[in-house]
């Protein structure tokens, strides 16, 4: 068995499990809210049966909340599905913009736990690259976690996708608290392994507060 392949598979499973646990936790939250609001509607019906007046506007708000959270749970399941399918093929042509949007959607809770938000700045046209979608997601989220842990104040991390010459660039900005020694992050064995498999490069700029990943623009 190829040692490098088995060690990266192991890492991939741990990452996969963590992300699925995080997304499923959010789905459970939505289900709890749907369940709770349905229960609250039942409570109000019981009150009405006992002759107490109930504001119909309140009933409308509650049914609206149920609908909102059904929609939210459905979106979370879609995100989970897209994340799972990112591992279908080791390498395929993808739209980087859609991948970065998925990354933003599945890291909302992770960012919130560090009092941060994640936003995207994407070009109007798709940015097509031939790469490993799951591996690239792993690298992006690894970078995001690193940036989130560097500082705990409220902030927004912006993820930008750009096409520069023959390369596609994903840049995380708004990274506060990085020090000069953080350029060592690019020497992290896990990061080096992922970069090698993706044929990508990583640039950390502590002064500018940015992390940039450059991917080759290979034909499909």
């Amino acid at each position, binding site marked *: 068995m190829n040692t490098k392949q088995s060690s990266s598979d192991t890492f991939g499973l741990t990452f996969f499990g963590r992300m699925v*646990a995080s997304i499923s*936790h959010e789905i*459970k*939250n939505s*289900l*709890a*809210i749907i*369940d*709770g*609001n349905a*229960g*609250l509607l039942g*409570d*109000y019906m019981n*009150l009405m049966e006992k002759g107490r007046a109930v504001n119909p506007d309140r009933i409308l708000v509650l049914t609206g*909340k149920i609908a909102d*959270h059904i929609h939210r749970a459905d979106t979370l399941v879609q995100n989970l599905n897209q994340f799972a399918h990112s591992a279908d093929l080791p390498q395929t042509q993808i739209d980087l913009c859609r991948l970065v949007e998925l990354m933003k959607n599945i890291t909302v809770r992770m960012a*919130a*736990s*560090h*009092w941060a938000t994640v936003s995207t700045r994407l070009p109007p046209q798709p940015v097509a690259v031939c790469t490993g979608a799951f591996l690239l997601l792993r690298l992006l989220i690894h970078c995001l976690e690193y940036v989130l842990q560097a500082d*705990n104040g409220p902030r927004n991390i912006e993820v930008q996708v750009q096409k520069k010459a023959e390369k596609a660039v994903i840049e995380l900005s708004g990274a506060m608290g990085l020090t000069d020694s953080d350029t060592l992050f690019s020497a992290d064995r896990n990061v080096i392994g992922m970069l090698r498999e993706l044929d990508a490069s990583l640039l950390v700029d502590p002064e500018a507060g940015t992390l940039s990943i450059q991917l080759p623009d290979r034909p499909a």
Partner: protein
Amino acid sequence: MKTRVLVVDDEKDFARLLAERLELQGYDTDLCFGGKAALEKVINGDYDVVVLDLMMPAPDGITTLKQIKHHKPIVEVIMLSGQATRETAIEGMIQGAFEYLTKPCENETMVFKINEAHRRKREQEERIRKALEEVGRIKRRQRENANGTG
């Protein structure tokens, strides 16, 4: 007297609906959306039971539980989480939580546990009151003996 319940959850819709359901069932409820706010309310307020979400941005549920128990050890805390991990449940109980429930939780179960938690708080308060009375009696006897009037 109504049981005073503080609901703490960073998921605002959940916190609001739980507080509303408890209010309809006769509890005196309050709510907040984070551990820091919860601690301030517990220190400055007079709550019987806190329903505390485990998974919150820092300070998380376990940290908030420790701080509540440090400042107001008699206030009972019911931990609540969508993730039923045995380790976190055990950690919560070690830190003094009354109970650990998972979301979604049956309303009847929540109400039962809140009532049980409040009953334990009342029993503890009664024990403390009796102990303080006994201490008072002992001190009075000691003073009387010292004055030669006992």
